[in-house]
């Protein structure tokens, strides 16, 4: 019995390490794109940038991370109902973020900074790549939600949930740097 638990912990740690290495690697893509923004445009920022929208997007993601963290703490203590509730809120916030980016931010930006301009290139590439990460994050959270509903997680064995939540925080983390780069600097 004890060796089974030791083996489980061993496996979970391997997967956690793998996930962190993946995020380390993935963040290099954003590092390159952020560097490209400053290389191409310095700190230039068109005056038409919608500041309240940027603040709202940031707030949504930060709030979603907060609820994801609550979901993580809940399942770690075997509280399945609270886990499902909080992961549900996280997913709703993530979808709201996506809708705002695709349906509000991009159509607006097309007017003052289309992709064929320097700032537009930075904006559409950074937000586009980030949005695909948000989308993939929502999808893995949905899988975690479904598995949690089936009773697939316990307090000891729930790396599927923990991993998708860590990945969701990573998506938020990337935005922490994209937001000032596109909206605030300059």
């Amino acid at each position, binding site marked *: 019995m004890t060796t089974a638990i030791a083996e489980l912990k061993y496996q979970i740690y391997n997967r956690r390490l793998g996930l962190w290495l993946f995020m380390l690697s993935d963040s290099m893509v954003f590092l390159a794109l952020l560097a490209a923004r400053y290389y191409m445009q310095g700190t230039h920022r068109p005056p038409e940038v919608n500041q309240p929208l940027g603040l709202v997007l940031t*707030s949504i993601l930060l709030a979603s991370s907060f609820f994801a963290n609550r979901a993580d703490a809940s399942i770690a203590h075997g509280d399945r109902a609270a886990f499902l509730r909080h992961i549900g809120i996280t997913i709703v916030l993530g979808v709201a973020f996506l809708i705002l980016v695709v349906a509000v931010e991009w159509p607006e930006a097309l007017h003052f900074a289309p992709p064929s301009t320097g700032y537009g290139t930075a904006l559409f590439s950074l937000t586009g790549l980030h949005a695909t990460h948000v989308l993939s994050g929502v999808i893995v959270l949905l899988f975690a939600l479904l598995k949690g509903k089936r009773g697939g997680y316990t307090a000891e064995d729930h790396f599927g949930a923990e991993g998708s939540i860590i990945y969701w925080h990573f998506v938020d983390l990337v935005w922490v740097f994209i937001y000032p780069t596109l*909206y*605030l600097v300059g």
Partner: protein
Amino acid sequence: MEKAALLRVGVLVLVVLAVLTAVEYWVAVGGLGGATLTLLALLALAKAALIVDYFMHVGKLFQPESGGH
């Protein structure tokens, strides 16, 4: 950590993140009317450190034997 304590830390981190975000917004578009890259980078790094430490629990990476929570 106890669940209640974990949740309390979560609330505290959210509050600090919100304050830092407000400061960012204020120095860039509000009162100061233009922020330097350095200041914004420092604020972003502070936010990132909070997320990495308290939300992503990077510390678990340095405790291989503890496994789960």
